[in-house]
Structures are given as C-alpha cells and as structure tokens.
C-alpha cells in the first residue's frame, strides 16, 4: 500500500496533529491528576490536599516543634503557614539548613490522620535560594505578625 504523494503528505500532517493533540490530552490528564503537587498547611486543614498521594508540603518550621526520636534518625516537627499547622514525621538526614523559623518543603504523603510522612526534606538550598512559594509565605507571615 503506497499512498499518492499528496495523500501521504496529508497523512503525515494528520499524524503530526494527532501527536500534538495526544500530547496535550495526555498532559492535561496527567496535570488534572497530579498537578496539585505543592500544598500549604492551610490547604491541608481546609481538606484541599489528597490523602495518600505524593505531595509537597511547604511552610515554616514552627519554633520549638522539632523533636528527635530515640533512633537518632527520625525527626518530628510542625510545618506552619501562620494559619494552620501540620505535624510532619521524617526518617532521614535533614538538610544542614533545616532549622526553626526557617522555610522547608516536605515531600511525601498525607496520612488519613492528617499527619504528613516525608520521604525527603528540602530546606533553603543556600543563602540565595528560596522557592518562590516559600518567599511569598515568609512575606505574608511577616505582615500578619506586624498586623497583630
């Protein structure tokens, strides 16, 4: 089955369009399912974060909340955005820049008990790095505190 040149060109164009549409549909399907990746403690308390799917939870590490467990490698702390708090548990080595009143992002899953289990903790990468989401949160927190 060899197509006439004109038809062959048409078939190729149609295939290219199909590929683009396919990519768009695939991307949209993927995004609808998984784009809600970055969440704040406020989202969690308002029920806007799904349980049991991979998420990033960003917030400030609440002062006085860091507690180390006897095994020496598990740390429990609270992430806050000034509105809501979420308890987080992480088994691993926290980054050097992970400390109280500092921004951190926990990657992991929300449990049915609204506690977050992290597989990975990202803290401020270096003195110049702050994820935009965190930057805004820090600014908001400050305004809120001054308003009080």
């Amino acid at each position, binding site marked *: *089955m*060899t*197509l*006439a*040149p*004109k038809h*062959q*060109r048409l078939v*190729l164009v149609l*295939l*290219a369009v*199909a*590929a*683009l549409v*396919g*990519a*768009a549909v*695939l*991307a*949209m*399907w*993927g*995004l609808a*399912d*998984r*784009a*809600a*990746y*970055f969440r704040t403690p406020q989202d969690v308390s308002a029920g806007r974060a799904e349980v049991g*799917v*991979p998420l*990033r939870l960003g917030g400030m590490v609440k002062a006085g909340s860091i507690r*180390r467990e006897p*095994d*020496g*490698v598990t740390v429990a702390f609270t992430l806050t955005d000034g509105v809501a708090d979420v308890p987080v548990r992480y*088994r*691993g*080595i*926290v980054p*050097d*820049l992970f400390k109280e009143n500092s921004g951190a992002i926990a*990657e992991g899953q929300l449990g049915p008990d609204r506690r977050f289990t992290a597989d*990975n903790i*990202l803290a401020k*990468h*270096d*003195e*110049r*790095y702050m*994820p*935009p*989401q965190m930057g*805004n949160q820090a600014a908001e927190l400050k305004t809120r505190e001054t308003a009080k």
Partner: protein
Amino acid sequence: MIAEAGLAALWLAASLALLQFALSLLGNRIGELRTMVVPVAVAQGLLTLFSFVMLIWLFIRTDTSVQLVVANSHSAKPFIYRVAGTWGNHEGSMLLWVTVLTVAGALLALVERRLPEKSLRATLGAQALLALGFFGFLLVASNPYARLNPAPDNGQGLNPLLQDPGLAFHPPTLYLGYVGLSIAFSLAVGALVTREVGPAMARAMRPWVLGAWVLLTIGIVAGSYWAYYELGWGGWWFWDPVENASLMPWLATTALLHSINVLAARGSLRAWTIMLAVVAFSMSMIGTFLVRSGILTSVHSFAVDPTRGSFILGLLVFYTGGALLLFALRVSSVREGARFDPVSREGALVANNLLLSVILGTVFVGTLYPVLVEAVSGDKISVGPPYFNAVTGPIVLILAALLFIGPLLRWRKDSRPNLRRIAAPAIVTAVALAATFLDPAMGWLPRLGLAFAAGLGIASFLPLAGRNLRRTPLTIWGMVVSHLGIAVAMAGAAADSSLTRETLAAARPGEVLSVGPWTVRFVGVDPVGGPNWTAIEGHLVATRGDTSIRLDPQSRYFSNPATETTEAAITTRLDGQLYTVLGHREGDRWQLRLWWKPMVTLLWLGGALIALGGFLALIGRIRREKSRPTVFAEARA
C-alpha cells in the same frame, strides 16, 4: 585595561554582526560583496572569543575592580574554580553563549562548501541576526565588564555547590550543544529564504545536529551524575525545571537527528525537518530563558533576574516567531518528498518522531504549566515527578519497543517485515519479564523497563547481522552503539528504582550496619580541611565476601559564602554502587545513610554509550561527506 579591551572587542564584534547581516541582504545585488561575508564572520568569531578570554583572565586575577568578579569569585578559590567562575554567573554564561554562537558561525562560513552560495549567505545572515540579539542583550542589559568603584579587597565567592569539577564543565558542554543548534536553525531559515529545502541542506545540517546532540547528551548525563553524587540524595533525575530545560532541546534534537537522515537519504520529511530544526533551537532558548528568568521554582535559582528574563523572552518571541512566520509563508513552496510505505524505515522514523514529540509536548506543558496557572489565577503550584513519570514512562517504553523493529526495516518499502530476526530479542524480553516476577513487589514500569532493556540489548546488534564488521560504515556502528546505550541506560534506571536497598541509622563509632550484601563498620569521625572549607569526615569500612573497602563521606563547611554541603562517598563495583552519606551528630551517635544500588552505573554508562554512538556517526559522516564528489544529486525513489 583588560576589561576595556574585552568590552571594545565585544562592541566591534557586534558591529561586524550587523555588517554581516547587511552583507547577506545586499549580497544578491552587489556581486563582489559576497566574498566579504566569510572574513567578516571569522573576524566576528575571533573578536568574541578574545573578549571571552579577557573575562577569564579577569577572573583568574580576581580583579576586584570588576563588579562581576567581585560578585562571583574570591582569590582563595582553587584556580580551576576561578576559571569556571567565569561562566558560573549570568553575564559570563551569556558571553560564553555568544562566543560559541559566533565561533560556530565562523566555522560554518569556513568549512561549508556544499551548500549553494545563496543559501549559505542567507544562513550566515540568519546567524548574524541571532548573534546581534544576544550581543545587544549583553551590551545593553548585562555588561560583564562593569567596573566597581571603589574596588573591595576581595570577592564574595562562588556558591560551593558549584565548586565541583563536574559542574565546572557541565554548563559549557550544554551551551556548546544549545548553540550548535543555532546553526541548524540558521540553515533551516536560510533554506526557507532561498527555497532550497532538500537533501543538500540536510547533509550540511547533519554534522552540526550530530555534534550538538552529542554535547547535549554528555551535558545531561554529566549533570545527572553531578546531582547524584553532589546533592547527596541518591537520586539522579528530579524533573527540576532546569533539568527539563536541557531535556527538551535534547528530545527535539533526537527527533531532528532521525528525520534529517530521512531527508538526506530519501528526500522525504522536508517541512517536518525544517520545523524540528526551528523547534530544537527554540527549546534551547526557552531553556536559557527558564534558567535565567527565575520564573520557576528550581534548586538552580542561583542565577535569577526577572528583567533579563523578559529580554530573553523578547528575543525568543522574535526569533521563534519570525522563523515560524517564514515557515508558514514558505511551506507551500517546499517540494514534496519521496513517497514511502507506512511499514518502512521512513515509517518507523516518523513514528519515532511523533513519540518523541509527544514526550517533548508533555514535558513542555508540565514545565510551563505552573507559570501559566500563576499568570492566569495567581495560584502557585508546582508540577513534580508524579506527573512526569506517569506521562513519559509509558511512551518511553513504546519508543523502546519501536527500536526492536525500526532499524531492521528497509527504506521506502517493507511490506513483509522479517519477524524471524526479532525472535531472539523477543524471547529474551519474555524471559527477562518472567524473571522480574522473582520480586513480586516490583512496579510495572521498572518490570517492563528491565525486560525491554534486556531484549533491546540484543536487538540493537541486529543491524550488524550478516555484515562484514570491518567494512560496516561508522554511521551504522554509531546507531548500534547509541541504541545499545538506550537499553543499558533503561536497565540502570529500572534497576535503581526497584532494586535499591537502603539503611538509615544513627551509629556509635565501632557499630556495624548492613545494607544489601554489604556489612559496614562505622570507625569514627575526624575533622579535615581543604583549600576553602573544613569538614567532618566519617570513616566507614564496607565488607562483602573477601573485599573490604574504606569510605570517607564528608560534611563540608564553606566560609565564603557560609554554606554546608554533603560529600557522599561512593564506591563503584562491577554490579553496582555503594553510596554513603554522613549526617548530623546525635549525642554520641552519627547519622549514616547507606544505599546499595545494584546496576545503577548502567545509567551513566548507557548515557556515555549514547553519546559515543553519536560521536562515531559524526566521524563517519564527516569522512563520507569528504569523499562525496557531487552533492546536488538528490536521492530519488
């Protein structure tokens, strides 16, 4: 004086670019001007190179009267990082970009003999226009030679994460690749302008695309290995926007590389190849834009400036938009290509191109979606690995399946694909798939990945079957090696995601841990010092059978700027890597994280094979083109 010489050279080069553009416009009318385009392109390349060398010199001397040096360097840095600091910042990396762009343009002007003169002149005109935009960007918005008065005593240093041999050479490699694509772009524009889209253009473009592809591959693989050992997370691909920024041009170039072969050998896929050449370079500009604008959340956000981002966005819109407009106006005059059967080498390459385009599309959407959402609704979201793995994983598997059969098909027609030839790889795949069920907990993606990798490992050699191996052209060897590399890398990725064993503990000196087949004894810690850092170094002795290995992971402290980094200690065995990280002190214990990663080295070995295959094909092409007497005879059906 050095800074002034560099700046003057840059201005001169910019005016030569303007002259080159003007000459390429006038060349048709004023015959004797034609011969001037080539020397102008060469002088432009040399002047820009001179300017870049001046900047390196300033960094080597740590000249603190230059703002850029102060902000990004320090005299206490080791020599190699003072040199690498030249491009470890915005201005320097943009100067490097222009340098590569103009030097590549000069090379093209010097070596290209096969293109019709009109096309070459139009191509050099397009290249000059590209260079002009980036010269303007440097001279107006990011002068690398700006002085600082009064000069401080010393510089502020370079981000310690960047003080690593892998990273010192990673950006230039990627840039060489990005900018090599500018030649493909200019050739496409030149061919559209002169309506000379055909095999001659494809043959002129192919070595540049091959070269750019090899460098992009090396850059991506090196960047991935850097992230793996330097960040200390044990991961090798994070779907970080900056990683995507290098992956997207690679995907487009991979597609281009395959379609260009169809055009060069068979004269088909003309418009599609032109389109891909435009898309590939646009992707490399989008990459630059994403990295430089800082509009995306990224661990690489150390080089961020929104105003500059909008400048690059402007250039991006101008060049890509201009090229697409030209494409739309001229596409009807692009001659139709030779016909082919759906089941043929061409058909398989079309399928390859479509699948790569789908992957590119989904990565593109996922990377830019957060920007779009924020612009529309103000919401800040981030798209992460769950999305990218889910949408790209299955398509990569389909592409791998296509690789079993595609290279075996004949050009133009193959109504009866010889299925007997893929019997062996098919059996290997089935057996490997069955074997993965020994580990019932394994996910489907790694399971299929391992099985396909095993089969493809065999299938990739099939194009050599029945050939005299010594007479087989290098280009065939290149294809075989690259496709084998895909199989090897797939095996590494699947193994890493499914077979890794991890142990995490806080240990006292003398304590013994185990991970996978290894027994690891924690001996203790010592303070150590380097040229501009101090560290706590852990001492581990790992044993398996008769082998005993010492590992010394470190936790480093830099003072300029004050930062802490983790230096993992990794030992490479034939069957995998033992990866150890020293964490924090907990009373009298130290946190230790140990990974046993079977077969993970295959990942980078595969990447290296992919690049090596491209390199072999490049050598083969250059040799062949040299011995090819006539070039305008187009292959016909």
